[in-house]
């Protein structure tokens, strides 16, 4: 009995080949697969059906929370906690609250965008099996990888390898856990 593996990985040398391979793998019925590229590829997100994510909604919520907090902070301080009467002007002077409300909206939305992005990606991640493939260091330079994970119900060590070979990669390798 051999050791269980994380998946099998094929290496390509141009983005078109990777996109075609990803489409072919989806068509074959594989769902637990991921592609790795040195830059974002629009068509790849298409091929892997990755266009929807929750980030915009999170950022909207973050912005609304930030704006509300900013306004309430100013209302609380200028009307209730530390009211200053200047020539009988109204304490609830909302026009002068606009700027800080705006800045807090942006601040909270931006923080949500960054930490939301990290959260949705599961980063920081100190270890990932993909790095066990020696050639994978090239994924941040000029190589493109497609990995079919062993968690996929259709995964079979030999058959999946054979399937990847049909896609004309430069190399197919197993990914150790």
């Amino acid at each position, binding site marked *: 009995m051999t050791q269980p593996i994380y998946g099998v990985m094929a290496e390509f040398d141009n*983005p*078109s080949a990777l*996109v*075609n391979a*990803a*489409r072919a793998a989806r068509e074959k019925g594989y769902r637990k697969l*991921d*592609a*790795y*590229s*040195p*830059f*974002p*590829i*629009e068509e*790849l*997100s298409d091929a*892997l059906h*990755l*266009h929807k*994510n929750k*980030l*915009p909604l999170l*950022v909207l919520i973050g912005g609304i929370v930030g704006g509300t907090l900013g306004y309430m*902070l*100013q209302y609380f*301080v*200028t009307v209730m*906690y*530390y009211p*200053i009467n200047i020539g009988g002007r109204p304490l609830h*002077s909302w026009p*002068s609250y606009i*700027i*800080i409300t*705006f*800045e*807090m909206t*942006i*601040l909270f*939305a*931006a*923080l949500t*965008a*960054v930490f939301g*992005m990290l959260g949705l*990606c599961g*980063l*920081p*991640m100190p*270890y*990932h099996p993909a*790095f066990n493939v020696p050639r*994978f*260091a*090239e*994924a*941040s*330079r*000029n190589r493109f990888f497609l990995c079919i994970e062993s968690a996929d119900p259709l995964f079979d060590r030999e058959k999946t390898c054979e399937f990847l070979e049909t896609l004309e990669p430069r190399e197919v390798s197993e990914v150790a856990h």
Partner: protein
Amino acid sequence: MAYDRQVIDQPSKKIIAPGYTFGTVTDQIASVVLTRKTPYVVMGTFAVAMGLLLIFLLAIGLLFTKGLGVWGLRGPTMWAWDITNFVWWVGIGHAGTLISAILLLLNQQWRNSINRFAEAMTIFAVACAGMFPILHLGRPWLMYWLFPYPNTMGIEPNFRSPLVWDVFAVSTYATVSVLFWYVGLMPDLATLRDRSEHRALKVAYGVLAMGWRGSARHWAVYETASLLLAGLATPLVLSVHTVVSLDFTVGIVPGWHSTFFPPYFVAGAIYSGFAMVLALAIPLRSVYGLKGLITDKHLDNAAKVMMATGLIVGYSYIMEAFSAWYSGNVFEQAAMWNRMTGPYKYHYWVLIACNVIAPNALWFKKVRGNTVVLFIWSMIVLVGMWLERFVIIVASLAQDNLPSSWRVFESTRWDWATYLGTIGLFLFLFMLFIRLLPMISIFEVRTLLPQARVREGARE
């Protein structure tokens, strides 16, 4: 591992020289950090920057022991070089955000090879800017009083004051700029992690890259996050200089109290910022042989933006004089007249020469194509924009509503030391940045290559 060390250092009219591959782009930019020897020019600049930084430390040491009087601040001119420098530095920062955020939303691909160092410029310029209001507090160690927090004194900041708005605007701007910059760096930090051969470097860049592996799932979220951050940074950058201008317009000092300051300030900010981008890009690309990546096209585009915003600034000067005259307000008229003919007339007319007359040379392709002239022009613009803020602030305060208290401002050597010191701080940080991090966004440059396009015919 042996790579082809092919380097393309030739001027190009396109946004990237032909002949690059994913590999050569990566190696050329990463080699500046990982393998190449630091050029002597860079070492020399770093030494000068370090010297200026020491002068800065000396200047603020003296400031802390003796007080604000070491600067030339005397009533009624209680804002002078400090606030001039603050506005100048914040303004310079704006071009970086314009390039990284606004040009991203507008899908201007030429930004891809200059956004990284322009944004680093933003962060360091904001850091320099932040020094001045804090040092000007008089008791800078109590700067946390500017923020609302529960305290035993039972007092809170006055949210109706533009100076408090400034605290929120500039600190938000600094935070968002750093976040946006770091997010942009993550894929390139992963590249450096995979390229570096020294164990310590691998660990350092690895920790900073947070385990980035270029997964398609990550890229999809990443692209959404970049666009959202750009969308948030765009109104933010416009708001920051607007708030800075409100510091003046909300006051009733003649020469400050006018409604067109916000757009006028924002245009001036981008004008001086692009001058700084050019002043950094021109030497950088020749020292490091990056003319294939930062091409003549980039300099040409930046010069055009500089000229366009310069013309808006020129228009604002005309409107400033016109509205002072047309207002029928004797104080406004006197302030404008004093500015043109009073003790600060040389400052005023030099700034008109720098900001209204000089940018018109950029109409000519020959001027935009000559890097030496362009470098000198960007210096002229930086000087002009510094003088603009000086004239607005000091000329208005020195001759305010009450002639009996008028006094001409005289700068001291510590004004100079503090100002030159922040230039040292800026260069010091910038030189560290180009030594330790990729100064051009590697992954965004890869997307510019023709090979990056997926061939549509290949679909099944």
